[in-house]
């Protein structure tokens, strides 16, 4: 995790309090030259608003889409991005790394 992630977790708490559906996406594993370390997170609300970062911009769009599903279903998901999965997800990490991102609902 990055030490300065504090504000985004507070935002997740505040969004939930304000009645939003909220999801938390966290990098749980990285291989190769992944841009953000394990523990980095992204918080997403049901407007599609998000804060934080799991990849420095490469896959955030796809994570947000999946997070909206997770908010609707309540079921956590594991996503994998990287060279190997480029065709499956249509997004990849240009840096050549691979990351696994755990997406869960808050609440």
């Amino acid at each position, binding site marked *: 995790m990055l030490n300065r992630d*504090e504000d985004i*977790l507070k935002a997740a708490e505040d969004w939930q309090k304000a009645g939003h559906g909220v999801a*938390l996406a966290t990098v*749980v594993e990285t291989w190769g030259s992944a841009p953000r*370390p*394990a*523990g980095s997170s992204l918080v997403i609300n049901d407007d599609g608003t998000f804060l934080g970062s799991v990849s420095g911009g490469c896959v955030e769009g796809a994570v947000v889409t999946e997070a909206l599903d997770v908010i609707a279903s309540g079921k956590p998901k594991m996503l994998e991005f990287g060279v190997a999965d480029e065709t499956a997800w249509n997004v990849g990490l240009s840096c050549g790394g691979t990351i696994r991102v755990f997406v*869960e609902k*808050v609440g």
Partner: protein
Amino acid sequence: MKIEILRELNAERAARRPVIIVTDTATGEQRLVKARDIAADPLRAELAKQLRMGKSGNVEAGGKKLFLNVYAPTAKLVIIGAVHISQALAPLARSLDYDVTIVDPRTAFASPERFPDVPLIAEWPDTALPPLNVDHYTAFVAVTHDPKIDDPALLHAFARDCFYIGALGSRKTHAKRAERLRAQGASEADIARIHAPIGLDIGAVSPSEIAVSIMAEITAQLRLPPKEKEQAA
């Protein structure tokens, strides 16, 4: 993540107390472990290791794959003395992600010209230190060579249980300092916590080299397990 866990996580982080969130990534099942509860936890060895490294990671336990997400506070470095060594120490510590503050009541030393990018408090330690919330996640370094400034600052560092306390001066200087601190109520355990002479013994000569030796010693104190720490010191 249950909202109760998120609230507790945010409260602990605001209080600068380390926590680890343990997640079973297959089921989403989750729990929060506070640093002070690690010793009694079934995963204590893994939790203690990840926390010491300040690093999140995966472990397997009881056939489950668990993700340990470590939330450790940003370490602070408080430097007592706006001296030449501090001019090298402050930028080095910042590059290692420490929040750095310098305290020195002598305004000729504590000038923004000498320290353009560092929070600088030109007050006596008794005034400057209480608002800084010096805590366990603080490395504390006293380098003025002036007992009037260093001594009260060191007493404050003892009271706040800083993970590293170092003071500049030879063995002889340090022996005198220990006497003065004892007279002011410091215990033997307090005195034993001071790293003096300060820094790892790498033959440092210039202020920049001394800064390297100090940051190396602080890093060892932060990251090494207790036994290896003794060997490094």
